[in-house]
């Protein structure tokens, strides 16, 4: 006998409204159909009424968790239209804020994930450490969540000496703490009971299903857009892609923890190489042409397509967010798991529904 259990749109485990209709046969999921649209605002149409500078702020509010990297990617895409040379210092500041964003997003996810399998103290632990990152981000950018650091042509705020000291102090204090939570995620017996072997995707399957980010890398595919030529600053910073071979929820967790260390390393390297100079270059005129820009967000690769037609408004803005690419893989992962595992499997792709639906 199959029972249909509505999972969402309002559900305590998922902070966001996504609805899954789960067909349950004897505690095992046999079918799942996601239903989207609870967060659809229609931002791709909204650019008609805003000029290309104002659109930066719209893009930052596509998602409040990966907001900095949305803004950075958008501005970089528009700069591509102008063929503009951006001061190096601005690029480094973008990297630092982007990695701060990744740090807080991954800690947030680790916490929510721990809550998903009922480990409340771990949830509180992760969120406690996340506040340290937010404090620094607030000092640098002026806001805890929506950073608004990037603008077309550069960044809007410079890093002061005091900010840099704060950043370095945060890196030093955060690293041992991440080691602590890593121990629990990797070694705790009950956590391993829940995660190991759950919702496994083979390397080939994850590749073909078009997944992105840690979902892809957790299956052994060393693909990270930070290594591409689109934004070559990462090559100078000694970036290394984090990969796990397991392909299950455990592997994806390990990838995200490794990326935390990687982000701290990147911030340190960026600070040590931080060049002096301007933080923005003036950009005049209206954009024409089309450009595709890709960067690596906490959740995976984001693709921005912008098209200008010589007016102050863009003609078309298209955002392919990482969760959008990962949701089809849920259809592959969910059948066969137990009902108790559904929140973990849904959370394992780090769903960001407001990204997906825009």
């Amino acid at each position, binding site marked *: 006998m199959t029972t249909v259990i509505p999972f969402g749109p309002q559900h305590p485990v998922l*902070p966001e409204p996504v609805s899954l209709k789960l067909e349950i046969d004897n505690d095992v999921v046999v079918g799942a159909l996601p239903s989207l649209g*609870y967060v659809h605002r229609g931002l791709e149409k909204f650019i008609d009424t805003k000029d290309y500078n104002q659109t930066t702020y719209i893009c930052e*509010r596509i998602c*409040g*968790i990966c907001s900095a990297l949305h803004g950075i990617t958008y501005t970089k895409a528009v700069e591509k239209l102008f063929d503009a040379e951006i001061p190096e210092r601005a690029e480094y500041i973008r990297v630092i804020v982007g990695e701060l964003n990744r740090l807080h997003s991954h800690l*947030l996810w680790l916490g929510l994930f721990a809550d998903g399998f009922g480990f409340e103290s771990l949830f509180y632990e992760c*969120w406690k450490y996340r506040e340290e990152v937010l404090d620094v981000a607030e000092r640098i950018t002026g806001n805890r*969540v929506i950073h608004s650091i990037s603008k077309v042509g550069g960044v809007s705020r410079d890093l002061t000496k005091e900010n840099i000291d704060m950043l370095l102090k945060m890196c030093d204090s955060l690293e041992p703490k991440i080691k602590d939570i890593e121990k629990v995620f990797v070694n705790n017996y009950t956590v391993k009971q829940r995660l190991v072997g759950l919702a496994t995707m083979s390397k080939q399957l994850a590749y073909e299903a078009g997944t992105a980010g840690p979902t892809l890398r957790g299956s052994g595919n060393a693909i990270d857009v930070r290594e591409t030529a689109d934004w070559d600053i990462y090559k100078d910073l000694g970036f290394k892609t984090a990969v796990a071979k397991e392909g299950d929820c455990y592997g994806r967790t390990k990838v995200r923890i490794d990326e935390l260390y990687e982000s701290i390393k990147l911030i340190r390297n960026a600070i040590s190489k931080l060049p002096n100079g301007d933080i923005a270059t003036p950009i005049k005129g209206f954009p024409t042409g089309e450009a595709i820009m890709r960067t690596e967000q906490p959740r995976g690769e984001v693709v921005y397509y912008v098209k200008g037609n010589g007016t102050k408004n863009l003609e078309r803005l298209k955002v392919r967010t990482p969760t959008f690419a990962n949701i089809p893989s849920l259809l592959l992962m969910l059948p066969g798991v137990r009902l108790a595992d559904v929140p973990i499997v849904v959370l394992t792709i780090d769903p960001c529904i407001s990204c997906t639906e825009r």
Partner: protein
Amino acid sequence: MSLAKSPWIIHVNCNSCNGCDIEVVACLTPLYDAERFGVLNIGTPKQADIMVVTGSVNYKNVNVIKNIYNQIPDPKVVLAVGACASTGGIFHNCYNVIGGVDQVIPVDAYVPGCCPRPEAILDGVVAALSILENKKKGNIKGKEVKLKGKEVPSNA
């Protein structure tokens, strides 16, 4: 005083960009620790007192939010957190956005900001508590909001 010491909230994400949501969750975490005031983030509307709504209303979630509102037993208070929940915010004239939460259900308190800081949200909850007490004293019942699938507010 019994109501003010044990406010259980249900957090409803309507059309939000997650910014306010994570700040609402951040209220519960060790730095802010809303449980000091007895605040519990309860998952089921039937046991909640305060409905914390983030994000504006769109055509798909309008019935969800009405449904949740109707399931909360009286006395109840609705707290709109963030610019979007208050007025629609930056997205107020998007094609799929109806507007603030008050277009659909009666809202008792607003927390402005994009996004509001956790301190502001806690302050909003405390403000909601006195409203909750007044509602209990005056025996004010929340009206049942009718579910009309086809209904579209006039100013949409």
